[in-house]
């Protein structure tokens, strides 16, 4: 049981981060506003979660301007994909070990 828990990634423990990662797993990229409405987070909350994931190297963000409006889009990195897949596998093993 311990070995199963070892791979559970602490970075994905919060529901918001789990949501960000799952949404980015199946979408090439998502912008700030879309993510915000999907996860129903406040601006500051989403920004701090994405910054955190970015610092870990799991997602990248690209800032640009559409007209005069700043637009930030996020996408998942290869490292993030691997980390998330491992996390999923660990969750699965953990659930199976309990039954």
């Amino acid at each position, binding site marked *: *049981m311990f070995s199963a828990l070892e791979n559970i990634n602490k970075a994905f423990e919060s*529901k918001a981060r*789990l*949501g960000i*990662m*799952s*949404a980015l*797993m*199946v*979408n*090439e*990229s*998502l912008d700030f*506003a*879309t993510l915000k*409405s*999907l996860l*129903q987070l406040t601006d500051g909350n989403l920004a701090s979660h994405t910054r955190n994931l970015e610092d870990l190297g799991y997602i990248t963000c690209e800032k640009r301007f559409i007209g005069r409006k700043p637009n930030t889009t996020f996408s998942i990195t290869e490292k993030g994909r691997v980390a998330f897949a491992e996390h*999923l596998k660990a*969750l*699965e093993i*953990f*659930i199976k070990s*309990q039954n």
Partner: protein
Amino acid sequence: MEANRNQQEALSALNDIKEMMEKTSRFKHISGWSIIIVGIYATIAAALAYLYLLPHPAICCFPEVTDTFAINTPHRTQLIVWLAVALAALAFTTVCLMSLFRARKHQPDFSITPSIRRALINFIVPMVAGGILCTSLILQGHYGLTSSIMLIFYGLALINCHHLTTSNIAILGYAELILGLVDCFMVNHDFLCWFLGFGIFHILFGIYFVVRNNKG
């Protein structure tokens, strides 16, 4: 106790992940009623065309109009093309608006994700290609294959976008495709096939969709 709670948490985490992936990668709110309405549009259009535009059996006893090509004067052809374009636009708008309405009702935080855009593009590209091909054939006076090309391209468009929406839509896609392929080997049944494919198939599939959605 602790282990049990952990397991609950892990399960709910997996459910959240699954839900988020589904929500952002597929558009699951296509309105069944709108599909039925499209079928009704097509039925009305077929009835109108049958009464006013096609060489009517009743008039065909007049020797001067027995030739189909005499009936299909440029003016008449133009009218048919415009009617078809208007019908397609009306049908598309109806489905989009009613589905958007349904999505907003079921999911108040609904927003247009990149995958919805991709689904629309996947659908529109084969439709536009088929539309251009049909127009070109009609303008050149080849009327025979129009209905089967419409059915084939429409079927392919549906199959092409089913993985981004409800996968059931592929059933309708394959049905239209098969009907279109059968149609291209049959002579003189184009009108019947068009009516079957765009009218009856839509109404039947729409009913199936509404029933299935109501079940959950």
